[in-house]
């Protein structure tokens, strides 16, 4: 017998909770949804664009009536709940209908605060909260001329902008001298006021409303100083109050909002609450991102999984006024002990301010150029130490425009501009999908449009589009990002659990960490396989079925289903015999194309899968081992000509390259890993865009880390300078092992170094000799098990089923 779940409040927080609940199963409850508005769930944050006629009501519907039907939900609209009877466990609606519940989910939202001045009840005085308010305003714009918006906050300014766009003469009245004082500091607020004035809005600052005048309908606003302004429409946007009247009547404990614990339960354990009506750890939230985090947790507990907690949210704000870019997060007014970094360019109309304490971002205000808002917000939420890049932080994350758009403002691009070059997705398609399908996260956009789902270089652009399209609802960087849909746990959680709980098999990890799927998915299985292999090199049995095909077949799958084969040539050196052997293989197996790779190796393209073991046997007989060009593994050591021939060369750079490759080949990594050794600072081996690069100089060896020549070009950071080859090998092994043990699966060294900070890595590898040597020892131990040539093993018959097709036709 299924229990009854009744949702009171058919809005974003409540319905999102149901969506999250359905991820746990469609048949957990008989569900009834009761809403006082006549509409199905719509995107409340999109009311401003509807008011400005940039969108229609049907554009902002998130869940159609069909959605409710498909999920077997009984939907009651236009008939609000008027009584909760906790004794009988039922709710009663305005029309007298009664619905019994086993569990009750309250998402009653909030009400606009109407200032209690004389005349506040006159016709033409409204809040800005729902579709009805918007319809009232739009009707007024057709009949009347003068509008006054009381409240110069986010909502008030969006309302004022919308009314102005409809042709009204709009005055914004604000009690204080700073617009959006909860989000902006004075300089940014002043710039905002100027741009809004240029658009045609009028402002009355430090004006206290005393009375709304008029007969039946309002005709003007009178202020405390006696002055007046004409108004046929007054929009009150001075704040919202959690809508808890119904809950208080039912005796559920409320303060400002209904008080919930970390599992979103009220003081009555069968009653849950989410959204704006909630007070959690003394906080009430009026933005959407926190509501979604609450929804996830509430659903998790309603589904009786009970493995997550809501621990509060850090929020950021974007203003949805077309043509004005504004971003704000955290504490943006510096207090004693804080430092403020400010970048102001009056000519381009940009203002950026970061408030920093102990090398961590506490708050940010951006005006005019908000492209880096997402990045600053992420650094703030994660508490990243910014010491390593303080000098450049004001200039933003330079990789944002790397998809070929330079530093173009993504919002200014036409709809036809291609954002995702891999999958050919244009800006218009992305924006459409976001608003039509109701997408809120990067993952949603990737699933629906494929944008940013391949190489990821346009991720910043897609995030910027998300942030500007959904405004503050965009779930930028959930404080804890689950590894994949199979779990609530993050990569860090999983890595920690594997180490601390000594979990040694995939089923152990999935059981201990309460995986939702029996055997994971294509995202978590390779990650778990890697983590287990990296942590327990002596014991863990590699699971071929949890590896991507390239690593399972030890070749790179090509789009026609054939494979490419890259034999290892240590340090890029080869002999005439080596080349002859490769040529013979190429002839024998009719290899259609050969090519020299960027890492100084020879690639044989177009080999049939069933020929691979025979190809490998011939190569193995000639002395080659696998080049691992297919793996999340150590790839190549690139070298320059070297001292033997080059008149500029120092040290034995080529020989060192060979030694490094002999040390590191075969090692599985979180992602691919490339090395290079250059014989002098001219750096012909391009060592400063590698994961680990060595630049030889007369007095020793410079070690560089965290470079990348691919999607996002990143120049290495200098780790240190050492004097002997032995030190190079030791520091290299230690750096690799630290990366192997701590980076997230599929995280290259470049983002890893940025995430954990170069100083953290230096502390361990440079300052702590014992730690460095321990890392190096652990690396060498794991190499004992990794340096077994997979090609030779398969040439000798291992995993034969992988390469042998079944045939039934004669």
């Amino acid at each position, binding site marked *: 017998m299924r229990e009854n779940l009744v949702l009171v409040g058919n809005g974003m927080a409540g319905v999102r909770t149901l969506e999250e609940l359905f991820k746990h199963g469609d048949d957990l409850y008989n569900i009834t949804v009761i809403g006082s508005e006549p509409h199905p769930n719509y995107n409340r944050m999109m009311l401003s664009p509807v008011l400005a006629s940039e969108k229609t009501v049907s554009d902002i519907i998130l869940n159609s009536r069909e959605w409710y039907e498909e999920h077997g939900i009984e939907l009651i609209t236009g008939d609000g709940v008027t009584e909760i009877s906790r004794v009988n466990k039922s709710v009663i609606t305005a029309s007298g209908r009664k619905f019994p519940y086993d569990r009750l989910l309250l998402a009653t939202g909030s009400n606009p605060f109407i200032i209690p001045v004389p005349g506040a009840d006159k016709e033409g005085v409204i809040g800005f909260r729902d579709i009805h308010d918007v319809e009232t305003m739009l009707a007024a714009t057709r009949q009347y001329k003068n509008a006054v918006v009381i409240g110069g906050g986010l909502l008030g300014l969006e309302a004022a902008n919308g009314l102005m766009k409809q042709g009204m003469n709009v005055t914004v009245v604000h009690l204080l001298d700073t617009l959006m004082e909860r989000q902006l500091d004075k300089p940014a607020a002043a710039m905002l006021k100027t741009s809004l004035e240029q658009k045609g809005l009028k402002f009355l600052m430090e004006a206290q409303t005393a009375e709304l005048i008029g007969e039946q309908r309002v005709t003007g606003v009178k202020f405390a100083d006696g002055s007046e302004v004409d108004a046929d429409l007054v929009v009150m946007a001075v704040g919202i109050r959690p809508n808890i009247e119904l809950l208080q009547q039912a005796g559920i404990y409320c303060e400002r909002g209904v008080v919930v614990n970390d599992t979103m339960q009220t003081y009555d354990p069968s009653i849950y609450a989410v959204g704006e009506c909630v007070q959690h750890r003394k906080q009430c939230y009026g933005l959407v991102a926190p509501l979604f985090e609450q929804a996830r947790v509430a659903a998790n507990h309603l589904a009786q999984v009970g493995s997550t907690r809501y621990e509060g949210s850090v929020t950021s704000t974007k203003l949805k006024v077309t043509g004005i870019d504004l971003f704000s997060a955290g504490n943006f007014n510096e207090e004693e002990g804080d430092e403020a970094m400010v970048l102001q360019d009056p000519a381009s109309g940009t203002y950026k301010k970061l408030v920093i304490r102990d090398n961590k971002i506490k708050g940010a205000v951006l005006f005019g150029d908000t492209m880096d808002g997402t990045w600053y917000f992420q650094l703030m939420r994660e508490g990243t130490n910014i010491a390593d890049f303080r000098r450049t932080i004001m200039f933003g994350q330079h990789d944002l425009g790397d998809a070929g758009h330079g530093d173009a403002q993504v919002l200014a691009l036409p709809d036809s501009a291609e954002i995702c070059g891999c999958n050919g997705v244009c800006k218009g398609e992305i924006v459409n999908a976001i608003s039509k399908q109701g997408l809120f996260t990067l993952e949603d956009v990737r*699933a*629906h449009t*494929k944008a940013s*789902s*391949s190489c990821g270089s346009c991720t910043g652009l897609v995030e910027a589009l998300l942030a500007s399209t959904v405004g503050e609802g965009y779930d930028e960087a959930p404080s804890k990002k689950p590894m994949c849909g199979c779990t609530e746990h993050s990569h860090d959680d999983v890595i920690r659990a594997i180490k601390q709980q000594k979990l040694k098999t995939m089923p152990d990890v999935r059981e201990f960490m309460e995986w939702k*799927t*029996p*055997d*994971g*998915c*294509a995202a978590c*299985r*390779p990650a778990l396989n890697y983590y287990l292999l990296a942590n327990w090199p002596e014991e863990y049995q590699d699971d*071929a*079925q*949890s590896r*991507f*095909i390239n690593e*399972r*077949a030890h070749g790179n*799958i090509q*789009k026609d*289903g054939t494979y490419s084969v890259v034999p290892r040539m240590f340090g890029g050196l080869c002999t005439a015999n080596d080349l002859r052997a490769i040529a013979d293989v190429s002839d024998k197996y009719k290899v259609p194309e050969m090519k020299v790779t960027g890492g100084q190796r020879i690639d044989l393209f177009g080999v049939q899968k069933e020929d691979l073991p025979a190809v490998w046997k011939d190569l193995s007989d000639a002395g080659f081992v696998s080049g691992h060009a297919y793996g999340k593994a150590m790839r190549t050591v690139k070298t320059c000509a070297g001292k033997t021939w080059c008149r500029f060369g120092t040290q034995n750079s080529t020989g060192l390259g060979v030694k490094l490759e002999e040390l590191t080949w075969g090692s599985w990594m979180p992602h691919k890993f490339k090395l290079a050794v250059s014989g002098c600072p001219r750096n012909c081996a391009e060592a400063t865009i590698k994961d680990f690069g060595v630049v030889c100089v007369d007095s020793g060896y410079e070690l560089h880390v965290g470079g990348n020549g691919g999607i996002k070009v990143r120049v290495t950071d200098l780790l240190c300078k050492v004097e002997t080859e032995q030190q190079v090998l030791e520091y290299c092994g230690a750096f690799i092992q630290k990366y192997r043990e701590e980076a997230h699966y599929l995280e290259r060294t470049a983002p890893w170094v940025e995430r954990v900070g170069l100083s953290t890595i230096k502390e361990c590898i440079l300052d702590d000799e014992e730690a460095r040597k321990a890392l190096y020892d652990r690396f060498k131990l794991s190499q004992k098990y990794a340096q077994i040539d997979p090609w030779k093993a398969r040439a000798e018959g291992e995993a034969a*089923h992988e390469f042998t*097709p*079944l*045939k*039934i*036709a*004669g």
Partner: protein
Amino acid sequence: MTMNALAQEAGNWIEIVALEDIPQLGSRVIKTDTVDIALFRTALDEVFAIKDACPHKQGPLSQGIVHGTSVTCPLHNWKIDLASGEALGPDEGCTNVYPVKVENGMVYLGSLEARAA
């Protein structure tokens, strides 16, 4: 035996391979004159046969990672339901499925007449 002859034997079962010769959460490819068929084995030893071509860009599904009763295409990560051949999630598309059964540890493929899901 040719494909045509096989097709005439619609309804008959053709012995293919021992179940234990397909890795759990893995696959084998059946090559015929006209079509490649991917034969999957799940963690619970269920067996499915579908055309070895993703509805998206004809990626070889047999080379993908198997989880639950679906497979993720190795080329662009489309997820395909093994029982119906249909793309899961927001993607839309369908590949052919073939009848298959396991008896006494041996896998049999039914009529090669493709069954559109």
